[in-house]
């Protein structure tokens, strides 16, 4: 019987399968379910060119289709193949904020997040997604190396 839900902050980057594999392994052991959350970074206050504005709706549709086909569908299939019940959410917005929002909404008890974040200067100065989740999460966070 499924007792708890774990959130997997899933970036879909090459290093991410480790976090997914680990989360699947843990969920299987405890007979729990997974909620895979994939966020497409987006700010409604960014600046776009006139052409980008006109094409935005079409692009968003394509981005969602692509994220679903390349990132979410294979990940869900992997969980299903392992016998772990899993659902997926793809959203646009600020990554940390939305992962925590989905965690609260699902009443999840744990967050799994990969360490493989950005090594950019901005990430070093302002903190990465991993650190952001670890600092602000209302539930225990497992950082998978």
């Amino acid at each position, binding site marked *: 019987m499924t007792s708890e839900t774990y959130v997997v902050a899933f970036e879909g980057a090459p290093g991410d399968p480790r976090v997914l594999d680990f989360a699947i392994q843990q969920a299987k052991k405890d007979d729990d379910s997974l909620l895979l959350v994939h966020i*497409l970074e*987006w700010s*409604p*206050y*960014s*600046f*776009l*060119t*006139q*052409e980008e*504005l*006109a*094409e*935005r*709706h*079409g*692009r*968003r*549709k394509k*981005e*969602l289709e692509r994220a679903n086909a390349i990132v979410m569908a294979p990940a869900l299939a992997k969980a299903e193949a392992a016998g772990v019940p899993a659902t997926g959410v793809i*959203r*646009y*917005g600020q990554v940390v904020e939305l992962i925590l929002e989905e965690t609260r909404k699902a009443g999840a008890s744990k967050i799994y997040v990969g360490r493989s974040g950005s090594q950019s200067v901005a990430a070093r100065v302002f903190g990465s997604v991993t650190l952001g989740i670890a600092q602000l999460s209302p539930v225990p966070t497992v950082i998978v190396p």
Partner: protein
Amino acid sequence: MFHKTFLLAVAATLAASAARAQDAPQGIDAAINAAVGAATGPFVSFIFSPFPGTSFPWIVLWLVVAATVFTLYFGFVQFRSFPHSIALVSGKYSDPDDAGEVSHFQALATALSGTVGLGNIAGVAVAVSIGGPGATFWMILAGLMGMASKFTECTLGVKYRNEYPDGSVSGGPMYYLSKGMAERGFSGLGKGLAILFSIFCVLGALGGGNMFQANQAHAQISNIVGDYPGWITGVVFAAIVFAVIVGGLKSIARVTEKVVPFMGVLYVGTALVIILMNVDQIGWAFGQIFSGAFTGLGIAGGLVGALIQGFKRAAFSNEAGVGSAAIAHSAVRTKEPITEGYVSLLEPFIDTVVICTMTALVIVITGVLQIDPDTGMYIWDAEQGRVATVGDVSGVALTSAAFGSAVSFFPYVLALAVILFAFSTMISWSYYGLKAWTYMFGEGRAQELSFKIIFCIFVVIGAAMNLGPVIDFSDAAIFAMALVNIIGLYFLMPVVKAEMTSYQNRLKTGEIKRFA
């Protein structure tokens, strides 16, 4: 087939003219100036001909009356709904599930980057030097009234836009004139107005959206590095514009879109610092603006002169009633077209009431307009047809001198800002012009390419011409768009009223949800 042949022939003729001009380097600027000045003269004269029995250009009256009618018809919507507009822009009514779509803020910011620019820097200087400080008063008034015009046209822009299967959208007066007027039983008239608007929009894109920008960018560069032929700036600018709009170098456009808002903030911030440095003179400056609005303070045109300049430059700067903003705002994703109307009314406020007023205050406060110490009146330079200025400068150079008198290095920052503003406006207007062009000639690579080539050729022509003919043609082309657009707005304003009433009722009952 006819379209393609015609378009390519036009492009080839213009290219050949430019090539002939290049063959004879001596007096290229003068030759272009004479040829284009003569060709555009009758059009300019028609647009700015005075109202019978007065010296008031009928087209300015056309805009003022329209803004007044919309203000009254919508019950002073620009003042009553101002707080709601702010709430919409800040995303308080945006459904989080729609994240990733064009937000109200993005539509407003992009539309603003097309309007905030040289009109706020050079245009205000022209208005204040010809119409005196009093022109500022009329400019503010025109900005406030123009908010209602913008509200009307942008609501219609979203309501009647075309949405294509690939998710892209095309909107603007061409579409609401044809589709909206057909709905009201004026199909033939609507189609005619849509075509006429498209013709004027292409001219506006080539004039105010291109030649004026190239011209003032050249003036600014030569102000810094010394005088040199304008066609050189034109060719460089044309090459960059070509790389972006034809070559698809979107990275340049993206960088510009990100730098321009920063430059805008820097410009307003510096103006604010200069104004605050002279805080004791703010009262005096506003006194000059108010008394100049009604007495002229020595300006040759007096009250009427100040009023005409104020209204003209405000319309040229915020483009309310012109129809261009409706093209920009129509890309927003909203179930309620009226919401974009509310958002768009902030545009003339930011552009004219805030930024133009700041430029005018800096010009007045820094004393670059010469005052006769004995009479306290401005010294009128009859030969130049404007107030005598320190250093005998006008246009963007006057604003530069005003800012430079307070912050010595600022002319260099301003030069960069002008170049970036000019470039950003050109890119925006190349899009508006292209939309009008493809509305007339159909979508297709040949059609798009021919317009883009013509657009680039006009960059060279604009940079090479003197300020006078460029400003005249730019103004005339932009105002001609308003001529057609406003006819359509009168026919379609009941549609906007119905949208507004329905939205307001649903807002009151809570059917329209606030998300934050």
